[in-house]
């Protein structure tokens, strides 16, 4: 559904995205995971026509983004990281303007449909600035879904939301997937990537350092983690490929040892090498 071929984008001397290539299948939830500054938002901006890449090519549904941006805009929906609703207008007015921009047919009934799907019927005439953060995020989703996009981009969708609202949002995203839409989301929440995404691409300094299902990624680097405190009081994590190997390491420690299943953060740490260095120092 989405094909990215060696795209690069620099801002001054900083390479925000560096020869990035990957594909996203139709109907999957694909997560771009990485810390702040990894290039996630720049990738989304390129795919949603806000930013032109310095090099490379991108295709959505076989349409070239650079050659034919208007056609791309007809099939995508975007929920940006920063709330860009018109704060002084009502929820309905925001959707009305957006629907007109996207030439949505039967706009008024379609607005009622998305408001109902997002549980926003009673907020229809509320001015956006009076809504809570969670409701504003839902309004952003309703707006993006109004023209029934084939691909939905969610840039850090649950940033700043309370844990229970975050879980509500995940339910909504799963529902969007069940309607056959392709979802690309960026996140730096490990749990979000693990529980929500069919496949995850891990970004670091603008480069893709791993790609696969969450379980594949964990399997590749090791499914078990031994955690203990070293003699200087620092927490040390060591990833192991088998339970037996984890037990062996744990046995060498007298107290404060914990064995747990690995998560995507462990994968990231192992691949970027930062915490591996700590283990060596600790040992």
């Amino acid at each position: 559904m989405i094909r990215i071929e060696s795209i690069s984008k620099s801002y001054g001397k900083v390479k925000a995205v560096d020869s990035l290539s990957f594909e996203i299948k139709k109907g999957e939830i694909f997560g771009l995971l990485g810390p702040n500054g990894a290039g996630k938002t720049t990738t989304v901006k390129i795919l949603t026509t806000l930013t032109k890449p310095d090099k490379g090519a991108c295709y959505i549904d076989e349409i070239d983004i650079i050659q034919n941006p208007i056609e791309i805009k007809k099939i995508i929906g975007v929920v940006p990281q920063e709330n860009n609703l018109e704060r002084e207008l009502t929820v309905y007015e925001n959707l009305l303007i957006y629907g007109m921009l996207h030439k949505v047919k039967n706009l008024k009934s379609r607005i009622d449909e998305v408001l109902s799907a997002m549980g926003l019927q009673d907020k229809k005439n509320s001015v956006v600035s009076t809504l809570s953060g969670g409701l504003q995020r839902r309004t952003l989703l309703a707006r993006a879904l109004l023209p029934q996009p084939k691909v939905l981009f969610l840039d850090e969708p649950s940033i700043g939301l309370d844990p229970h609202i975050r879980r509500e949002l995940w339910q909504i995203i799963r529902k969007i997937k069940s309607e056959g839409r392709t979802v690309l989301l960026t996140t730096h929440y490990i749990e979000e990537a693990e529980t929500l995404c069919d496949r995850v691409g891990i970004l670091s300094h603008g480069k893709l350092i791993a790609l696969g299902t969450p379980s594949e990624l964990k399997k590749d680097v090791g499914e078990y983690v031994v955690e203990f405190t070293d003699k200087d009081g620092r927490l040390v994590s060591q990833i192991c490929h088998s339970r037996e190997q984890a037990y062996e390491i744990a046995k060498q420690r007298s107290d404060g040892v914990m064995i747990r299943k690995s998560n995507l953060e462990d994968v990231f740490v192992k691949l970027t090498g930062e915490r591996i260095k700590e283990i060596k120092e600790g040992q």
Partner: protein
Amino acid sequence: MIGWYPIFLKEMLQFKRKLLRLGYIFSAMMAPIIYLVTFGLGLGRTVKLSEGTDYLTFLLPGLVAMSSMNNSYSWVASSLNLSRLYFKTFQVYIQSPVKPFSIMIGEVLAGMVKGLFASLLIITVGFVVPSNFSINLIFVVTLLFNCFMFASLGVITGMITKSHEDTATYSNFFIMPMAFFSGTFFSIDRIPTIFKPIIYIMPLTHTNVLIRKNYIDTEALISLLVILLYCTIFFLVGSNLMKKYNE
């Protein structure tokens, strides 16, 4: 559906809300009223114009030109700058399947409405105060072109400024001197010849010439052509900036 309409509608919905706040109309009228009182009713009593017209009759069309310039320009420049850099709402247009040209038309038309609204307030005052102020077809056409020209210039500023403070800088360097030296408060004939080329480069000078005419003579025709030229240049540059938008 016409491409520019949703952009125009959004601006109008926001404008409607601003109008409902009492403070807006007062603030829009404040500067021109101050000028009217100090220059027109105060200093103006001592001013004698060569053509025999009273000063207030001379001043009012100038104030309409100045006010339409200020409002068309500032509204567009400021709202575009904020929506692009601060609220990020401009991204919604860029990510929608509308042509950059349509965004430009929507923004300019919205700016024109705001400029015309402010002008209407001054025109109303013009008919209340004792003067021979009157409106003819040339006045109306000039006013429309002036709003179009400065709303388009507002788009250019709104698209190239890198921070909200920049908008004020552009305003202080270009708009403010134009308001004072382009024939709003005194006839440009009084300006020393050495400065005249600069004065005639300023687009508002030509609005001030044209808006006071009762018939089209050579001078009016030249000013009309200059205004049309500026309208075309500003509109094309603004459209091009929309087209080349890249974050």
